């Protein structure tokens, strides 16, 4: 079945012969999550990526798409297959940080380029950075840092913070505390995959906090928000965009209305690229794009911009072309820091209802031209 999927999704463009402008064809291997609980994220990244490729009309690019089922061992197998038998030039697609850690170092060590459309573990931004690794989304801490900065500006002085007990959850609380200047009313690590938050909500109620920060991606966030809204606790909530992206807002429903969240992208960022992206994504797939879709779209456009000015076989030139980030991002200003992670603005959004659809609008900017703290450790 997965083979079938891959075949169906492959862009039929076997332009292996050199083309008129002198730059060779590029073969892209995309490993992403297309089945199981986290499939919504991978599907959005894939759809955003393919939208940009199809819009470019570039027949010089071939994309092979495979499903990692959110399992590191499968991602590693797929990566080996793509590198050794498919001989791809560029890899992309991985959603989850633990899968990225299993695949990216090996891929870049074998001379492949890796463009991350989502995962940004700190290990790949600091000491473990690599010249061939580019992150087009964010370093994992970024949106949490923005939430901390927002909490300061909103005048919160006593936050209750919670996240799942795994590396990205610990990074989230660290990121929040890095910017946040107030006291902590409580700090709780929940179980990864936990679905019932009654105990934590009771603690929040008893803690005397003036605000709540949480990082609970996917289904965990849906459960938390529904239960929080029903509990009668009415402290303001702030979180990163992951619990408020377009894919899950409809499942949360009115419980999310008015919640403040931080994101590097939103559909109302005012630039021509973004307006065209939102419109064409809706026309193509019949739903509003999420931030994951925007990241997939930007990743593809970065790749296309590099292909336009360098040959992928000339590694140094291609790397320089990627580093230049000479493409129109849906986010507006976009540049790479020296550790190949984004320098970008991070916005504060609020959940609103437009007709029947729950979505976000930007209400301010949390951090301007923000990069990450790990870059100082990156030597390349």
């Amino acid at each position, binding site marked *: 079945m997965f083979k079938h999927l891959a075949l169906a999704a492959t862009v039929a463009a076997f332009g292996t012969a050199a083309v008129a402008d002198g730059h060779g064809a590029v073969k892209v291997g995309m490993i992403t999550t297309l*089945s*199981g*609980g986290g*499939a*919504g994220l991978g*599907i959005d990244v894939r759809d955003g990526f393919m939208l940009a490729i199809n819009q470019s009309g570039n027949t010089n690019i071939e994309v092979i798409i495979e499903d990692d089922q959110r399992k590191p061992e499968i991602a590693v197998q797929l990566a080996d297959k793509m590198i050794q038998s498919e001989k791809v030039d560029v890899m992309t697609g991985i959603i989850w940080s633990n899968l990225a850690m299993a695949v990216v170092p090996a891929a870049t060590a074998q001379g492949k380029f890796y463009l991350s459309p989502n995962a940004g573990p700190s290990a790949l931004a600091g000491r473990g950075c690599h010249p061939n690794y580019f992150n087009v989304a964010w370093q994992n801490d970024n949106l949490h840092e923005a939430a901390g900065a927002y909490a300061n500006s909103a005048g919160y002085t006593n936050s209750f913070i919670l996240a799942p*007990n795994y590396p990205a959850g*610990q990074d989230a609380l660290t990121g929040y505390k890095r910017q946040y200047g107030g006291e*902590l009313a409580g*700090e*709780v*690590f*929940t*179980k990864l*995959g936990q*679905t*019932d938050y*009654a*105990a*934590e909500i*009771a*603690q929040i*109620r*008893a803690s005397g906090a003036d605000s709540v920060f949480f990082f609970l991606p*996917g*289904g*965990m966030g*849906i*459960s938390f928000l*529904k*239960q929080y809204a*029903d*509990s*009668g606790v009415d402290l303001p909530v702030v979180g990163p965009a992951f619990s408020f992206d377009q*894919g*899950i807002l*409809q*499942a*949360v*429903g009115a*419980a999310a209305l008015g919640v403040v969240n931080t994101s590097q992208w939103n559909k109302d960022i005012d630039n021509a690229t973004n307006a065209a992206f939102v419109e064409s994504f809706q026309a193509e797939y019949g739903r509003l794009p999420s931030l994951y879709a925007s990241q997939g779209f930007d990743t593809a456009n970065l790749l296309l911009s590099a292909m336009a000015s360098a040959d992928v076989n000339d590694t140094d030139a291609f790397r320089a072309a990627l580093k230049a980030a000479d493409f129109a991002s849906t986010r507006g200003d976009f540049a790479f820091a020296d550790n190949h992670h984004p320098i970008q603005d991070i916005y504060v959004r609020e959940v609103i209802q437009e007709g029947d659809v729950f979505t976000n609008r930007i209400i301010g900017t949390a951090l301007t031209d923000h990069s990450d703290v790990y870059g100082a450790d990156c030597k390349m």
Partner: protein
Amino acid sequence: MSLILLIEQVLNGLQFGVTLFLMAAGLTLVFGVMGLINLAHGSLFMVGAFAAAAVAGATGSFVLALGAALAAAAAAGALVEVLVIRRLYARDHLDQVLATFALILIFSEGTRWVFGSFPLYLNIPAALSGPISLPGGIEYSTYRLFLIGVGIAVAIGLGLLITRSRLGIQIRAGESDREMIAALGIDISRLYTIVFALGAALAGLAGALVGAIQSVQVGMGEPVLILAFVVIVIGGIGSIKGALVGAVLVGLTDTLGKLLLPGMFALFMPASSAATVGSALASMAIYILMAAVLIWRPTGLFGVRA
């Protein structure tokens, strides 16, 4: 720590326990009566939640949604029993595990096919939303109180069914000697289908009830399934009473462990690492409980089988 917080957490533990009981009751019946390990029980939980979300979305009625969850899960259970499970009774547990694991994959991908990859919306009915004030100034979620009520009602009903009704007698007889009741002229394959559908319906009901406060998504059943197995191992396989006591024990241990352990570690550790260590230990607490019970009583609290 205030008394109010502690009482609220005990209620939370109780509520978590009775919803686990709905899952564990079906599992322990099927395991006890038919000797079958059914890993796909979590999928029936998911079927119930999706059926409820679909019907609630179409009609807006929570009662209809609960009915749909019961019907859909029972139908899926009966269908699976007739098509697949029936062939597995005589096989060993490994074959059963393999076949029912395959059923998990089929149910998950099938659900994704029909409903898509994004979580569905199912919410608490307006009549039960919001908090309610209990004596002593405790604010507690009305819906969670309702869940406790439903769980206790189902436990009583199931207890009566097993001890007082003709079907209950047949189930208990099938548990202790299946050849004998077959020889007495009871249609054992029909009995098995009924028991399996009953267990499935309870799982579906749990899925719908829990789906309203959690996320209705593919794969939502598997984490609950693991807890349900812990419950029936603690309670003793095949015992409804054991499932109830085990479920409440697991619910209270998990909830109070999460509340108390980080606080205990904070007495002699910095707050941040106490939170990490305490919550890590809290997530192990129910398994430590299970190990302790098994050392004390290897067949579980109310288990009879050697």
